[in-house]
């Protein structure tokens, strides 16, 4: 088997995550989908690392993880405080971007 | 370095605008006096410019030049030729009258709020317009000109949209809606023109590498800067379009009636007598100088459009029921004459066009301001609401008649000289166009006299029976304008002496000479 299949898998997972972001209304689930996308990218980085025979790809994946962690922390905090004020975790409860 | 006279002329009203705007709400009258004083001081500076200008000297005088945006070759370059000098003088001259005429136009309706300062805003905006117009006349850097050509729209937009006639027939709300419509229409038309011009300005830069009018014109003249024919034509069209909107030339004219109809009379004068002149002035200065070949290429089309403007504007003026709209269409007709004179490419035509700009400014100011006084007394712009005014207010009627006679170019008043020069200048090169344009003078008589007859003569209508005659302030506005109209009609030499050399240079820019008469009869 050629390791390139890992890349296909990563692409597939990324797409599923992206579609999820667009379809789901629950902000938490949307967040999970974003995590899924990030993980798909990480997989790709790891596979690239293997492809090139150096560890830089893994380093990037590592950084991605750290950033993802930071993002999740802040994002979930935002969701919680939003929920406190709006009593909803829906991303389209208010069409906030409309004048 | 000598005293930057031109900068001072433009900066003074700008500073005045800021100072006027800063006057506290309660000191309304102080703001008015401040604006008036600033405009008078500017007039003094403009007169100094006129005196210091030597008609026999270099083309651009009193020049100032400083680096501004070095990366793009944009310079702060000012300079005036004879045409600019008289137009600056016109602008500076009309401002005190505009301010005086609009003395009470922007008083707040209720004096409750401490923070609401419409009066200050009104006069500050007027002064801001003056500053920008003056610098547009002075700029010899295309980019510098463009900036102020466009920036002018901002204060004008607020002047049109923010201040209208009192006591509107259809109620304040309808008036406000129509005002916004007019203001937006004004802005959109001019913005579209300006944006097209911006493209042409950038295009010019890519071709020429800098924005200096003098440098480009010289490079064009001695052949170091070659433009492909199509390039030159496109650039010309880009510039001309913007100026034609501003001027306004048929069929780009429809913003003017709306704008003049909805704004107060002083602002209407500001639009047609001052701001629009930048358009026609720029045709002379930029279109002809930068793109002489393309100008000649476009001349037939432009002349036909100008001719349509003349006849069409006059015919529409005849059909109007609204006094201000009538004056607006009359102005369109007159702008047709100005453009006709510019593009006839004869000395008489161009001198006439330049004089026309000045005279039209003064005559329209006289007519429009008196019309404004009339409208403010009755609270209606409709011609049908008046009748027999001369019986109750003879001085008002008399000044109105003189303004009207100036509009129809009665000999002895200033506009006649310029109109005749334009007609002669056109006729020598394009007889057919000259003859058709002459019909304009008949139509001018028609709309003016019909207006006068319907409003001023006949039995006194009950609604006007108690109308007061002109007050001292209003007389102070009208009398000097009328005196000027008569003086310049009888003795236009001071202006022509300044204008002639500049026209001669413009003629040589486009490589045109006047047609020779068939018989050499002159001594």
């Amino acid at each position: 088997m050629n390791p390139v299949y890992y890349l296909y898998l990563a692409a597939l997972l990324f797409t599923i995550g992206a579609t999820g972001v667009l379809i789901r209304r629950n902000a938490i689930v949307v967040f999970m989908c974003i995590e899924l996308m990030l993980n798909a990218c990480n997989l790709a980085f790891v596979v690239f690392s293997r492809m090139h025979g150096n560890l830089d790809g893994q380093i990037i994946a590592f950084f991605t993880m750290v950033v993802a962690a930071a993002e999740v922390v802040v994002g979930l905090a935002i969701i919680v405080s939003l929920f406190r004020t709006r009593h909803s975790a829906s991303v389209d409860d208010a069409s906030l971007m409309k004048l | 370095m000598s005293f930057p006279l031109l900068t001072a002329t433009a900066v003074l009203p700008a500073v005045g605008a800021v100072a006027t705007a800063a006057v506290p709400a309660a000191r309304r009258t102080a703001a008015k006096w401040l604006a008036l004083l600033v405009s008078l001081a500017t007039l003094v500076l403009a007169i100094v410019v006129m005196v210091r200008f030597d008609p026999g000297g270099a083309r651009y005088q009193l020049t100032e030049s400083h680096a501004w945006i070095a990366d793009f070759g944009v310079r702060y370059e000012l300079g005036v030729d004879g045409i600019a000098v008289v137009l600056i003088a016109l602008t500076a001259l009309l401002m005190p009258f505009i301010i005086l005429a609009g003395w009470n136009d922007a008083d707040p309706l209720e004096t409750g709020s401490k923070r609401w300062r419409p009066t200050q805003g009104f006069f500050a905006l007027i002064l801001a317009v003056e500053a920008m117009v003056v610098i547009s006349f002075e700029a010899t850097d295309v980019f510098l000109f463009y900036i102020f050509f466009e920036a002018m729209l901002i204060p004008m937009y607020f002047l049109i949209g923010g201040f209208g006639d009192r006591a509107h027939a259809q109620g304040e709300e309808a008036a406000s809606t129509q005002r916004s419509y007019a203001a937006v229409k004004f802005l959109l038309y001019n913005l579209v023109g300006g944006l097209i011009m911006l493209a042409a300005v950038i295009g010019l830069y890519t071709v020429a590498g800098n924005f200096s009018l003098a440098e480009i014109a010289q490079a064009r003249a001695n052949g170091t800067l070659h433009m492909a024919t199509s390039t030159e034509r496109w650039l010309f069209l880009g510039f001309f379009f913007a100026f034609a909107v501003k001027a306004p030339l048929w069929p780009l004219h429809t913003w003017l009636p709306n704008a003049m109809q909805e704004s107060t009379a002083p602002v209407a004068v500001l639009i047609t007598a001052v701001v629009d002149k930048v358009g026609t002035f720029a045709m002379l200065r930029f279109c002809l100088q930068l793109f002489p070949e393309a100008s000649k290429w476009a001349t037939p089309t432009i002349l036909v459009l100008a001719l349509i403007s003349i006849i069409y504007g006059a015919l529409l003026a005849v059909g109007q029921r609204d006094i201000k709209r009538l004056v607006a269409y009359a102005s369109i007709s007159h702008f047709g004459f100005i453009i006709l004179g510019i593009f006839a490419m004869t000395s008489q035509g161009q001198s006439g066009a330049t004089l026309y700009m000045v005279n039209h400014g003064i005559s329209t100011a006289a007519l429009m301001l008196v019309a404004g006084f009339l409208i403010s007394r009755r609270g209606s712009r409709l011609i049908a609401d008046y009748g027999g005014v001369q019986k109750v207010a003879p001085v008002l009627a008399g000044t109105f008649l003189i303004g009207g006679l100036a509009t129809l170019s009665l000999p002895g008043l200033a506009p006649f000289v310029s109109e005749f020069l334009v007609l002669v200048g056109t006729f020598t090169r394009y007889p057919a166009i000259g003859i058709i344009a002459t019909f304009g003078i008949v139509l001018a008589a028609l709309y003016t006299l019909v207006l006068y007859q319907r409003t001023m003569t006949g039995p006194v209508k009950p609604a006007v029976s108690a109308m007061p005659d002109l007050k001292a302030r209003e007389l102070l506005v009208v009398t000097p304008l009328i005196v000027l109209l008569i003086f310049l009609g009888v003795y236009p030499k001071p202006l022509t002496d300044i204008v002639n050399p500049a026209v001669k240079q413009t003629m040589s820019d486009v490589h045109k000479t006047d047609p020779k008469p068939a018989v050499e009869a002159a001594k």
Partner: protein
Amino acid sequence: MENLIALLIAAPLLGAAVLLVGGRRLDAVGQWIGTLLSTTSFVFGVILFVDLLGRNTDDRTLIQHLYTWVPVAGFQADVTFRLDQLSMTFVLLITGVGSLIHLYSVGYMEHDERRRRFFGYLNLFLAAMLLLVLADNYLLLYVGWEGVGLASYLLIGFWQHKPSAATAAKKAFLVNRVGDMGLSIAIMLMFTTFGTFAFGPVLSHATDASEGRLTAIGLMLLLAACGKSAQVPLQSWLGDAMEGPTPVSALIHAATMVTAGVYLIVRSGAIFNAAPDAQLVVTVVGAVTLLFGAIVGCAKDDIKKALAGSTMSQIGYMVLAAGLGPIGYVFAIMHLVTHGFFKAGLFLGAGSVMHGMNDEVDMRRYGGLRKYMPVTFITFGLGYLAIIGFPGLSGFFSKDKIIEAAFAKGGTEGWILGTCALVGAAITAFYMTRVMLMTFFGEKRWQPDEHGHEPHPHESPKVMTIPMIVLAVGSVFAGGFFSIGDRFLHWLEPITGHSEGDSPISAGVVTGATMVCLIIGVGIAYLQYGRRPVPAVAPRGSLLTRAARRDLLQDDFNHVVLVRGGEHLTRSLVYVDHTLVDGVVNGTAAGFGGLSGRLRKLQNGYARSYAVSMFGGAALLVAATLLMRAV
């Protein structure tokens, strides 16, 4: 001496300025200021006239250069005055008759509250008219030309509260403007042809230009003359102009302003001499107008309108004579001067009648007035005799010469023109006799007006009768004075030139024929109006009479074609401007508005919706990248 010329104009101009700007405090003395300044101008005129008489025949042209008016490259317009025999004649006529009419107006306008302004306008008119005849170039002449138009406008519409007066004033100005258009085109043509429009160079080089150009210039000048002198086809304003006060009708619309067209043609004689086609048109216009005016004059019951028709007709004579070239120039001017006397006298007489009759103008309400106003009757009667060409009086000499000159034109044209002039003389005799009989003879026919006031005809005050008497004297003797020893001919000849022409019939025959026509005209009028009582209400009359009452349908034509047509044109243009020109722009705006309204729905504010767009965009970018690599 030539420095006095400007003073000729300055005096009435000063009067106009003082009276119009001076305000109410001059109300009491305004009329005297006006009269004084007008007379001052007359005195200057006389001084200059004496000076001219003292000079050699060749040296009678005085030029005063005041200043350069419009200096533009290749275009030089100066304020320069030229006083020669031709202008001198006019100056004397204008200031002389003008001063008399000022004096008359003092009485006539005594009770008018806006009297001061009336005199201001009169002075303005004098200044403009003097400028017209004294100008040394066509552009300056044009200033005077429009200036008299303005004064005429102001004076016709003097009683502005009457809508009819305001309308008549506007009409006069507009019709005149059409003529002015001709003058301005003529000036432009001169400028392109000669490079100048000063009298000297243009007239002396006229023969150098091609005949086509000269014909064009001549026709344009004729258009101008038609407008100002109420010649067919621009005559329609003169009848309505009678809405103005009667002294105005006398001064402007009889004696002076309306003759400006004749002055223009005679002044431009050099051009017309070189353009025979233009001359022919001039004579045709003159002949048509002299008949037209005469026919209209026969049908009018309004005394002033009848006289207006007569004015038109008499100016037709002058234009006809002017169109004959050097044969006729002198007689055109001579008739102009004598006409100035007798027609002004007639109008003043009519004014005096109206003054005594509560401003009644309908001649059918007059009758038998000779007993009530003898001075008016006598002066009017002398004017009447002069105009019909009673032997020995002014009109006899001048009109007879014109008829002779018309025959002297030669060929078929001469016969036709001469016959027209003769027929015109007969009709003139008819309608003037009609006026005379209806006004002063027969039974009294006046009735109380709607307020029940019966008019009490009375003689006018001295201030009014004296000018009438002076004018009557002029009507009687001027013609004879001019003709004896061909004084007038010798006076004017250096300017206009003169040639005798070759008349197919002798002068005596022409005079005889004229006399016969005169008798026929008077006779018919007597039979119709002297022998039978005049009905107080006009009978229906024949088709021609009815048409003549309506100015031979000219107004109806104008109304239907020009007024209605114009109204439709402007109205449809207003519509076009609103819907089409504005509509295109507004439509574009609305299109963009609608489009953005649609597009706006895409911006629904839902973050997810935007995310789809972003994602779609990303997909497109990937696709584009792949495509680029594939290519």
